[in-house]
């Protein structure tokens, strides 16, 4: 099979980009979408044109590096998979496929189809953790976790941090991502002490990064390679409301001398 690609090419952030059209070499339907791009790139390089830059790493749907908006949908036509798990058998011979980068103010473009998702890290750095020093942990079985909670926490924790939720959302909102982390930690007994502080800090950072707000369109859930549920956003909304009402913690008085 062969396909026609309409690909976004942009040298760097400061140079405007455009779509360019390429005809793929002969393909095999068992190729992954990224392998198809590899083949196209080899072809381009052999003809002296700079290959199309695109992000990828594990190629098995877990690292969250691959991105791409394929024909208007982040991570391609199927539900519950990442771009790297999208296979050419999902397309037909002769199809024109439009390939764009993830677009959001908080994900500035680096080159062609690659964008910078460090804003996600910064959100995690302000509170996406449970404060526990190495070595200070009690025996793992000393705090039982109800199985339902552990399972639900795992549903949220599966997030691969790819940013497809942001890419898909008409508001470029990061709510699903942040909610997944907040819910994962908020569902574990170990996460309780910092529960409200965490949600407040992470939401504040999320706003500062320039993501949009949630209007419950459901696009994020629909494109999430791990099918993380909007339920978690409600959970975060709940926690955040409590956090708002609680207000800022009172400054601690300094510890005793001696």
């Amino acid at each position, binding site marked *: 099979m062969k396909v026609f690609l309409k690909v976004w090419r942009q040298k760097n952030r400061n140079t405007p980009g455009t779509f360019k059209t390429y005809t793929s070499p002969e393909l095999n339907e068992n190729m992954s979408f990224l392998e198809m791009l590899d083949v196209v790139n080899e072809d381009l*390089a052999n003809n002296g*044109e700079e290959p199309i830059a695109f992000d990828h790493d594990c*190629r098995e749907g877990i*690292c*969250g590096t691959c991105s791409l908006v394929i024909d208007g949908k982040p991570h391609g036509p199927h539900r519950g998979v990442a771009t790297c798990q999208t296979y050419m058998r999902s397309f037909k011979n002769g199809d024109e496929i439009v390939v764009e980068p993830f677009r959001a103010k908080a994900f500035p473009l680096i080159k062609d189809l690659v964008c910078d998702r460090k804003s996600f*890290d910064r959100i995690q750095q302000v509170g996406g953790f449970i404060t526990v020093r190495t*070595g200070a942990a*009690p025996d793992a*079985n000393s705090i039982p976790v109800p199985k339902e909670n552990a399972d639900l926490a795992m549903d949220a924790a599966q997030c691969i941090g790819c940013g497809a939720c942001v890419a898909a959302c008409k508001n470029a909102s990061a709510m699903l991502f942040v909610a997944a982390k907040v819910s994962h930690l908020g569902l574990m007994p170990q996460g309780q002490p910092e529960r409200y502080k965490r949600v407040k800090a992470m939401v504040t950072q999320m706003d500062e990064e320039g993501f949009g707000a949630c209007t419950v369109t459901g696009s994020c859930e629909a494109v999430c390679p791990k099918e993380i549920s909007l339920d978690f956003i409600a959970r975060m909304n709940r926690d955040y409301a409590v956090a708002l009402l609680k207000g800022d913690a009172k400054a601690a008085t300094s510890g005793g001398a001696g």
Partner: protein
Amino acid sequence: MATLNSNIPSGPLDQKWEHHKFSTKLINPANKRKYKIIVVGAGLAGASASATLAELGYEVHNFVFHDSPRRAHSVAAQGGINAAKNYQNDGDSVHRLFYDTIKGGDFRAREANVHRLAEVSVNIIDQCAAQGVPFAREYGGLLDNRSFGGAQVSRTFYARGQTGQQLLLGAYSALNKMIGAGGVKSYTHSEMLDLVVVDGHAKGIIVRNLQTGEITRHNGDAVVLATGGYGNVYNLSTYARGANVTASWRAYKRGACFGNPCYTQIHPTCIPVSGDYQSKLTLMSESLRNDGRVWVPKRKEDCGKKPADIAEGDRDYYLERMYSAFGNLAPRDIASRAAKTVCDEGRGIGETGLGVYLDFSAAIARLGEDKVRERYGNLFSMYHEITNESAYQTPMRIYPAVHYTMGGLWVDYNLMSNVPGLFVLGEANFSDHGANRLGASALMQGLSDGYFVLPATISGYLATQNPGKRPATDNGSFKQAEENVQTLTKRMLGNKGKRTPDSFHKELGKLMWEYCGMARNQAGLEKGIKAIGALREEYWKNVSVLGEATDWNQSLERADRIGDFIELGELMCRDALMREESCGGHFREEYQYTPDDPETKQGLVNPGDVKRRDDQFAYVAGWEYAGAADKAPILNKEPLVYEEVKMSTRSYK
């Protein structure tokens, strides 16, 4: 010649670590922040080490080539992590985990290291649970376990099929906490391209910013590499495409010895290769072998048939037949080699004939489809995505693929390489798995190194260095190292060759798989060394790298890494050629059990099983760079001394 002193503490095996921690010099808390430690890598090993060192008060600078620390390939580990908790009351203990690991590694690992690993394993689970890692639980809320290859107890902790992801996110959260608190400075999209050695000590690195192309110098009182494994030397593997050997290799070129480079793990349950375009092989977790049965047709003629049309009596459940005690749970090296053997006999299945069945019909009959879905649903859907086949209806097709590298930079008991100040953790070092790694033990080792071992041992080195006296980045060694990197970049971009870097990688991969793969022999290895040497020469003449040095340039990134892989491939072949024995994942056809051997007759092993030669090869090979890629490297040996267990024939029958 380098000196490889293992620095194993004296005393009884089970007290070595305690004693060593006590006798290691400490750094006064006020002085800790005067020490700056460079950590390269943020996989399980790097992230846990960075976080913990920062908690202790050191100034930590962390570097990753990824866009985020969370992307390290540890994220892909599926099956689980071992720990000697004995929560199942099935007879597990620190000693048993130690013994299983030593035996699994075919008696080619250091006793003291492995024992420490087993001791620390229990703390790892505590630590991770406290971080909120959502491990699988039983209805009572306590932790669940599963069994894994090479062990007869259930000691593997897991989080669905995404254990590595969850553990990494735990370590990443610890790292984030310390980045947020200012204890760690994180550099992402930053690839280490050289190690700076000042007066014989590792004191810095040279880094390329992948976004801007900028080359910068970074100094530190110690340098920690946690840069992962090098299985991508085979091109096709279960590794992420970006996984590379560059950091280790550049350190090797600065004098660090490379330990046992030829020890490679080929994992038995991966999805078979389907075509030449393929970029990646996907692992199907070993946990599948808990319920799946491996078989091929008894007769060649049946190979073309649909599996359902092959009668039960015409199937050869070869693992159950050959290794009755462990059956489908035989260690990886054994299961892989058995698959190769039956395929070599012409009984492989699938289009290429390089495949065996992993069949769940018995499990589905016994447990019901729902239970099987609950246990393996995500793996089955992953399999379906890739192959368009449903493993609920027809057996999976699997074949071995390169998965892990037991070899790596040589380190002593303190995880310090022979270059003082250079520490190596996780898969990047050679230390704990001998010639074969058991399932679920790499995650354990990475976290043990990072959370518990390095933070305790690094002070021993730092105490010998004056606080605040690290060399500045205008020191001549920094300048020289930076120039080295600049020259290399210029050379690649200026090389108006005709072949893409990837085409070289493919060619290298084929050579490695052919000559240094699952079965090796002298003639093949000699051929391989020649062919790879020739490839290296062609590379520098004919590689073409498009784009610029000052921009995001993935061709340049890859070209850098592939150049190193080619040189590494040659070293691996040399190591494999030198090691005239078979052990674990290293199978030299010349050294295998025959039907006439007494061990075979006693029923300990099968004909064709690996045959060690303890009298001659009970040592770690530490290869030292001879100053030029075309000069034969120097072999240093660290003898393996076993005090606790006896090196014996590894039997899984």
